[in-house]
């Protein structure tokens, strides 16, 4: 049996393992490479934090990721770049089809984004520091060499969290995350896990390892005979004659999401007849948790410690969404479904379910198995806090507020894009009608004219309560796909030389 400590954490960027919650202050920069040699030189000594657990909280941390444009600017060979997925190569705004699926239409359309719609910046640099320490850390990082090597394209707004995990609407965030199977112990046989489990194959989050299908996700592999520089890269586990450029790396998905906090609470207040309790209840229904993070459902599930009250539940016993509406944000974003609909007790009942029978509920089994569609969220909020009580005032102070949504995943299409499309934006999710994610929906009607701007929940008698004409609460301001390399791959990137003797002979 393997141990968690066997994992190559020293080659992993720390963000895959930690959220750096203790480092409350952040500075997220989008950069372009302006001088390749200097950029490489800077990269070769940049203190990128690894996944090794330090004995005490560090004062600062730094993480780095590159867009495809960035890898090209750093003269990574086309053969390597072609080994990445289409989503990464062609990007988040690669086609109208992609925008339709991600809900980047109407007011979210890329044409009104602040960045990422024309050219994706080369580098995403994430700086973390303890409270009050970010300015000094940024100064240290931005030395003379750095300034010559890179140009700042955009400073993504962030705000010191002050140690609390409240997102701008006022909800506790970052409670539920997949537990990564660093020890690589868990079997990955499909149909082996009828029920939901929070434990996830490392290959779902880190490239170069087996994913939930027991397979290795597509990624660039290098023949070391043709590229001597690759010698120091890790071997590809599925083909030891090749070097794995992406091992211990992953994709980083970034979306800048503006949140209309007064708009959110004023709308809720209006439809709740200005009754604070009703308003709170409705807000909790929309998110799927109370503001302090308390789930709307209590139950024990495997893979989650009994002590983790915030995550000890599935929706199996709440098929109709009496306790937590089916459309609630967290229920859409992670429906906590297993491989088979509930009720499997043995071989026969399993077989019956595989064949599509034995379902108690007409709307049973409409949602995909969750383990193939998990993401690791690492976002940070920005903007001044505004309590619901303040937000409902007609003169509530307007300010830029929102979330720098960051998530990590080894397969952009199957994880992030699937969750965003089939679960969050889809107005037919789980058999629903006319409703998209209450927080994130784009509210655009379907081609047939059918609305998608409702939110339905059940009252205590089980009667459906409709809230109609939800306005937009969230607006996409920009986004892009990045590759967050392992540390040896970073070394490879920084040790290339322009004349290119490293490359295919």
């Amino acid at each position, binding site marked *: 049996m393997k141990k968690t400590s066997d994992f190559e954490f020293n080659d992993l960027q720390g963000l895959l393992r930690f959220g750096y919650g203790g480092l409350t202050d952040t500075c997220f920069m989008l950069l372009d490479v302006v001088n390749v040699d200097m950029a490489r030189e800077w990269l070769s000594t940049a203190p990128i934090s690894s996944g090794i657990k330090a004995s005490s909280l560090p004062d600062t941390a730094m993480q780095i990721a590159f867009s495809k444009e960035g890898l090209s600017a750093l003269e990574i060979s086309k053969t390597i770049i072609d080994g990445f997925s289409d989503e990464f190569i062609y990007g988040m705004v690669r086609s109208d089809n992609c925008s339709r699926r991600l809900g980047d239409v109407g007011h979210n359309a890329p044409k009104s984004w602040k960045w990422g719609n024309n050219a994706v910046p080369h580098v995403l640099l994430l700086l973390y520091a303890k409270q009050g320490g970010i300015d000094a850390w940024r100064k240290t990082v931005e030395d003379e060499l750095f300034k010559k090597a890179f140009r700042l394209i955009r400073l993504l707004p962030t705000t010191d969290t002050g140690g609390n995990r409240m997102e701008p609407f006022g909800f506790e965030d970052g409670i539920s995350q997949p537990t990564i199977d660093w020890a690589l112990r868990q079997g990955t046989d499909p149909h082996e896990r009828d029920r939901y489990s929070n434990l996830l194959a490392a290959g779902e989050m880190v490239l170069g390892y087996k994913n939930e299908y027991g397979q290795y996700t597509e990624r660039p592999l290098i023949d070391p005979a043709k590229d001597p520089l690759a010698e120091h890269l890790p071997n590809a586990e599925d083909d030891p004659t090749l070097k794995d450029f992406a091992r211990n790396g992953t994709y980083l998905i970034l979306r800048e999401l503006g949140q209309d906090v007064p708009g959110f609470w004023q709308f809720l207040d209006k439809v709740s007849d200005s009754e604070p309790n009703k308003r709170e209840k409705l807000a909790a229904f929309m998110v799927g948790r109370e503001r302090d993070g308390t789930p709307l459902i209590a139950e024990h599930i495997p893979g989650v410690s009994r002590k983790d009250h915030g995550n000890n539940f599935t929706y199996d016993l709440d098929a109709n969404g009496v306790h937590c509406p089916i459309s609630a944000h967290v229920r859409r974003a992670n429906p906590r479904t297993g491989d088979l609909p509930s009720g499997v007790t043995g071989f026969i009942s399993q077989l019956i379910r*595989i064949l*599509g029978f034995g379902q108690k509920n007409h709307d049973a089994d409409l949602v*995909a198995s969750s383990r193939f569609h998990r993401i690791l969220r690492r976002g940070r909020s920005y903007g001044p806090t505004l309590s619901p009580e303040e937000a409902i005032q007609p003169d509530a102070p307007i300010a830029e507020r929102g979330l720098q949504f960051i998530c990590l995943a080894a397969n952009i299409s199957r994880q992030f894009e699937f969750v965003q499309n089939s679960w969050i934006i889809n107005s037919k999710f789980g058999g629903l009608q006319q409703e998209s994610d209450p927080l994130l929906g784009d509210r655009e009607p379907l081609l047939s004219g059918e609305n998608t701007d409702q939110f339905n929940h059940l009252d205590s*008698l*089980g009667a459906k309560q409709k809230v109609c004409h939800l306005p937009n609460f969230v607006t996409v301001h920009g986004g892009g796909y990045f590759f967050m390399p392992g540390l040896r791959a970073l070394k490879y990137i920084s040790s290339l030389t322009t004349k290119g003797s490293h490359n295919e002979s």
Partner: protein
Amino acid sequence: MTPQSTFMIVATVSVGQLKKLRDLLGAMNKIPGHADPENALIPFCKFDQLHFARFVIIEANTAHEIREFGVNPRPWRPALAFLGDVDGDMHAFLADLVNNAEPGLKAIFSHCEDFSEENLDMLQWLQAHDIRPNANYVNWLGRTVKQIREEVILHQTLSRYLQEIAHDVDWEDIRTVRQKLLSHVEMEKHKGRLTLSLPEPTSREWKIRNLFHLLGVPLILLILSPLLLIALPFFALRLRMLERSDPELFIRPSYEHVKVLSVQEDWDVSNQYSVFGDVKPGLFRLLTFKFILMLTNYFARHVYNRGFLARIKTIHFARWVFMDNNHRVFFASNYDGSHESYMDDFINKVGWGLNLTFSNAVGYPTTTWMIKEGAQREHAFKYTQRRHQIPTEVWYKAYPGLTAVDLARNSRIRQGIEIRQENDAEIREWLRLI
């Protein structure tokens, strides 16, 4: 009940006509790949019995892959296929089609070989070019377009009315709420704004044929079972040998190809899907393929005709068709959701079924015992299905915005009007559907 039937008219495109044909078909569209229902050539919306239709130009883009088996590709000339799913007899539909759209049909099929306008009987020509599927799937046997449309109006009527009265009714007294709704339905019917037609009587002929099929297939299998039993070990041996030796093709589809396909996708809640490829060489694969499709057809016809195909509830219609003298196979479906979620269903919900059929096709990822692995080799599977997918020139769906689950729910709402619920809990459940 009015059973559904299908047609698939196929004709080879004349030399030099491909581009012109493509442009002509493209002009029928409103948005990429999606027919304008009122287009001048074939105004699909005029045909009340038509569920889905598509024009697809079948090209063998992946024909070279069979070389991996040491076999030379057979020649294939691009062929135009016009396929659709209709209520009632497909011959009656074709006659109706010719009556209403003969000039359009002629304009289109004049780009094909074997078509001359002189003394042409269009209906006969269509019938002569129709090919039958080896397996066919209908999401809900007997649910007509007319019924679907009536039930949509019923749902909308009830939903609007419920919203109107929501604040004035006493939700504790659920029976009165139901009574109000029922009276409203009666009112609307009376005013002629709502119709709930009774199903047509099922034709005797169809019933008898269906019964013969229902009993005949198991009977023949039973008679053959001693033979099949003897053959089984040899079958298993041969199967495992082939599974070990068949080459697995791990070829990523070009992004250009993916782009052509995806421009047409995700405009509505449903999408179309057509794939075309080679049957693996050898009699063993062909017979296995045919046998499995025969079973698929049997189960689709008699078991999976009530809203689900094994665990999948998102497919409206699907068909498997052998072409080119059994050397090639064509699969077409109409499904709800995105392509990625369709593939997710294929892999995670019915991977075993997909493996049983398509493991006999060139390029399919390696299976073990025909049901294991295969689709679960995620990338190999996703690559191969995308590579073999061909774009659709024109696609028509009679009820945009509605998923198969929506249709089933609307039917249940209607059932609740016709059959009184027994207790309050059932009434509440019914009300939740609205």
